[in-house]
């Protein structure tokens, strides 16, 4: 094959489509071909093992009926609000416990206790207290995000070099200045790690919570598809999950890493074009 098609230059002389993108597309096409081939070979009923064309038809039908767009938007809103809430609380409590011995002694054991209680255990109780829907899901997912952010912030704050704090205090810095100029920047790699871990946990939690406590969303689409034997819809839901996660990773998590810890040389950028 000539190299002219996959390296078409744009105005700046760079290829319009990179080799990595070609490889990615080839990977997706290979999976689709293998999937379709397996459908022909195995020859199971469509409700048991749907073919790519069944899934595509289900996708089109869900779009035409307005179901998919609304479910995607519901999931996206729930995810965004939950992650923001969880990160806000995790960061605040992480700094509070990390900076104050009093709060550490007071809250440490309680937070350790609640860390062991997974969000799934809370959902039945939240459904009774608040009911099905938005608030229950947001609280459950924010709870999932809270702990990784809190513990990573705590680790970050506790590993700040004391010599830097002492130097700042010697120069007459206030507690606020020490916090903003030394502690938070030093703890940032850990905070970002907590954010990344929490965002991943939140996504899994979102799908699970929607299966239990919602009447809409991608998790509900998968659950509803399984109860009505519409496996093509289940697969559409699974593909949407993957697409949503890729978007979250590309549009939120990687830029945050690039703009903070990679930019400041705190970690080496290992992000390929995956």
């Amino acid at each position, binding site marked *: 094959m000539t190299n002219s098609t996959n390296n078409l230059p744009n105005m700046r002389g760079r290829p319009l489509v990179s080799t990595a993108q070609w490889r990615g597309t080839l990977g997706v096409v290979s999976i689709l071909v293998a999937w379709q081939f397996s459908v022909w070979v195995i020859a199971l009923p469509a409700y048991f093992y749907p073919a790519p064309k069944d899934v595509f038809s289900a996708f089109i039908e869900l779009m*035409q*009926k*307005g179901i998919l767009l609304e479910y995607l938007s519901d999931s996206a809103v729930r995810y965004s609000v939950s992650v923001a809430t969880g990160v806000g609380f995790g960061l605040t409590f992480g700094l509070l416990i990390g900076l104050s011995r009093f709060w550490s002694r007071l809250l440490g054991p309680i937070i350790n206790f609640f860390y062991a209680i997974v969000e799934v255990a809370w959902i039945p109780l939240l459904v009774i207290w608040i009911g099905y829907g938005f608030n229950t899901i947001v609280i459950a997912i924010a709870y999932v995000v809270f702990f990784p952010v809190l513990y990573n912030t705590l680790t970050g704050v506790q590993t700040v070099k004391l010599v830097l704090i002492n130097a700042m205090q010697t120069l007459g810095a206030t507690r606020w200045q020490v916090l903003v100029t030394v502690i938070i920047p030093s703890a940032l790699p850990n905070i970002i790690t907590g954010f990344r871990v929490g965002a991943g946990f939140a996504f899994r939690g979102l799908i699970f919570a929607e299966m239990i406590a919602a*009447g809409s969303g991608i998790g509900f689409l998968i659950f509803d598809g399984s109860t009505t034997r519409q496996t093509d819809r289940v697969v559409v839901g699974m593909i949407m999950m993957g697409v949503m996660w890729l978007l979250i990773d590309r*549009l939120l998590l990687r830029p945050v890493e*690039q*703009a903070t810890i990679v*930019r400041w040389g705190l970690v080496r950028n290992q992000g390929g074009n995956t």
Partner: protein
Amino acid sequence: MTLPIHPAWRTPFLTVIGLVVVLILAAVVGRITSARTLAGIDLADRPDVVVSLSFTPERFHLEKFQDVGRYQGWSDGQAVILSSDPEELRRLARNYWIDAIEPHEVHNDKLDK
């Protein structure tokens, strides 16, 4: 012209801008469509309406109908909703999957002819 932001944030920034533009456009188109769809309906007192769809409604759609008013059932590609709430009806009419919304009386007249 380059954006005065860190290169890593360029794609997300442009995506958010694009998303906001799409949402605003969708909202405007929805309102225009809603006004056009409900043109022949007197929304002053809770009207009885007939909603036409090009497909059989699912639970998702039935829940929307129930939010609007008293859903009376589905036949011949149409759903009858009695005593509909004007604001909820406007919201329903913004959806692109709605074919038409007519007053229940007009619908009955058509059937009589």
